[in-house]
């Protein structure tokens, strides 16, 4: 901060220089909150901003998938035999049949619009990745803060559970779990069951990462004198955990959640690729890659687009998360 010690507005924005006109002696004292500082820093980080815009775009595309597809494509489950060569069942034309009508070309054999399927695939991928991150963050924060604050045998127990989960072969576990799963579970059917299972399992195996970070932060934060000050004022454990410690954990947890989403996207893609994801004909990026595997020698473009989608999404989230971490780090240069 450059001039926080005087009664001048800390924000030296010339547009805010209305105070002197308002009258002498009643100059408004305006400090910048930590959020404003972080936002200002983020605004200056062009790479992170580009990542953030891409993320936003992907989310919008996923949310408004029917609209996007309605404007620029064909229904994702519609077969277009007329776009395929009769003999080979490969798309007509170069680059997998890319044209103004079919932006990303068509699938070999079935002739479905790849663009539409990538757009609808974003829904599944992002939904699973987001929800799994939420599950991981909630579980991780609760267990991490409890382990870090109370210590002792509680910490020992939670830490060992985290170690076990981190050592657990989650891919194998999910594949075997999916194979024994009933079609109907708790009122959910087919894809509902698959998505719920993916979210719960990816989230469940993800929380120890968040938990470790939160535990470590809590260990260092609980020794701060403001925690002692709260205790000396008569603050109970609930006050200390939720009012004193939690606000200081929001920043690292947010950053970690943003960096966790790309990992979840990859995990979801891997599971779909292995056949443990959503059921066909629903599209997801991972299952599209698997479909493309059979014909990649003759039609590589079918593999390129879902792969590109995964790549762009993961990269964008990572760049944004990195920028967010730098912006929220109080020790960073401003």
């Amino acid at each position, binding site marked *: *901060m450059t001039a926080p010690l005087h*009664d001048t507005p800390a924000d030296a924005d010339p547009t805010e220089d209305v105070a002197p006109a308002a009258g002498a002696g009643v100059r408004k004292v305006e*400090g910048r909150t930590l959020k404003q500082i972080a936002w200002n820093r983020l605004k200056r980080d062009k790479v992170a901003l580009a990542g953030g815009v891409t993320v936003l775009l992907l989310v919008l595309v996923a949310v408004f998938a029917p609209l996007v597809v309605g404007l620029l494509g064909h229904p994702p489950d519609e077969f277009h035999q007329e776009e395929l060569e009769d003999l080979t069942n490969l798309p007509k034309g170069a680059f997998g049949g890319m044209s103004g009508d079919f932006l990303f070309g068509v699938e070999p054999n079935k002739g479905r619009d790849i663009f539409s399927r990538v757009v609808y695939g974003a829904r599944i991928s992002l939904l699973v990745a987001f929800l799994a991150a939420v599950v991981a963050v909630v579980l991780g924060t609760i267990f991490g803060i409890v382990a870090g604050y109370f210590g002792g045998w509680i910490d020992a127990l939670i830490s060992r559970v985290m170690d076990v989960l981190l050592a657990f072969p989650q891919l194998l576990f999910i594949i075997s779990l999916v194979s024994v799963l009933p079609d109907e579970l708790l009122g959910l059917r087919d894809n509902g069951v698959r998505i719920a299972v993916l979210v719960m399992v990816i989230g469940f195996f993800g929380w120890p990462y968040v938990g470790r970070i939160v535990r470590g932060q809590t260990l260092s934060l609980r020794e701060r004198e403001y925690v002692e000050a*709260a205790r*000396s004022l*008569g603050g109970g454990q609930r006050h200390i955990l939720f009012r004193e410690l939690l606000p200081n954990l929001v920043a690292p947890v947010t950053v970690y959640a943003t960096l966790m989403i790309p990992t979840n996207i990859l995990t979801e893609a891997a599971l779909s690729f292995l056949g443990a994801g959503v059921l066909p004909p629903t599209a997801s990026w991972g299952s599209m890659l698997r479909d493309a595997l059979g014909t990649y020698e003759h039609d590589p473009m079918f593999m390129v687009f879902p792969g590109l989608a995964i790549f762009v999404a993961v990269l964008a989230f990572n760049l944004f998360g990195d920028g967010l971490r730098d912006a929220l780090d109080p020790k960073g240069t401003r």
Partner: protein
Amino acid sequence: MNDDVKGQEMTTPAQTPAQTKGASEPLLKVDGLVKHFPIKKGLLQRQVAAVQAVDGLTFDVRPGETLGVVGESGCGKSTMGRLITRLLEPTGGRIEFEGTDITHLNTGKMRPLRRDVQMIFQDPYSSLNPRHTIGTIVGAPFKLQGVKPEGGVKKTVQEMLERVGLSPEHYNRYPHEFSGGQRQRIGIARALALRPKLVVADEPVSALDVSIQAQVVNLLDDLQDELGLTYVIIAHDLSVIRHVSDRIAVMYLGKIVELADRKDLYATPMHPYTKALLSAVPVPDPRRRGVKSERILLRGDVPSPIDPPAGCRFHTRCWKATQICTTKEPPLIPLATGHQVACHHPENAADQAPEDTTLLSAAKEAVEVVTVVAKAEEEPTPEPPAKRVEK
């Protein structure tokens, strides 16, 4: 407060006649206070030893006075502060606040008492939550204690901010917008918000700039007069302690070795450790430059509080140590009016164990006396390895 009359004129408007000096009960009574931190090892977390941070403290704090506590790092003075504010659970002994035994009160029972006993912390950078506004921080005592002040919390907090020399407009700002001295003022405002009776200040100025130290110390002084506070001020800076205290307790390795009025302590220190400490204070007086002053340099380190020396804890570094010092622990007894000392062979007072005159061999090398001829350019000239101090 540094006027010598201060001791006699402690009566402040806030005090009732019954609380005036002399006739009053001590506000805080500490008797044989002990805190051992266990050291655990192995799979079963067996206790193998204990850090004897505080080992038997007995003292009173009278209403309206300032008790200074000095000692070098690790002597247990901060632990003492956290014990009397009950942030730590004592291992033994007894703490009485206004006649109530608070030694082992649990969090819930302690809560109402927290209004009367408050603490000012050492590090102004870690004692304020960076995610809270100043208003939230200084208003926290009201919220946590369920107190609804007249005119609302916000108004009271703003008044408090003004009282400690900040602007009421700082209410909505965050700690990172303030300097160290301003943050310490915020910490003081928080501690005094509920008008406590006893304030324990743990190194309140040691983290601050020297120029700011004076401001904060004087602020504490003024607030004491205005609000009728009683202070226990913990510090390692002897000049700060001299400035603020009415009485001073000197601690060494978890024990009080000397407890006396400020004047007595500085004029006639009785414990050898106190003497050594005082001799180390630089004299910031240019007119006394060139006057010879002798500085007692203690040799060696403070022994480990895990395994403190038997008998007198200072005997390993004392130049007057004799046989009795290694075996018998000297009790803290008054050797003059209001001057308690724990030493077998005190300075400026009658020897408590006159029959024991043979010095320990270690004692002969315990100290080095450096004569400082503080002329402008001259380097301090250490005398050739001095044997011992003249009596």
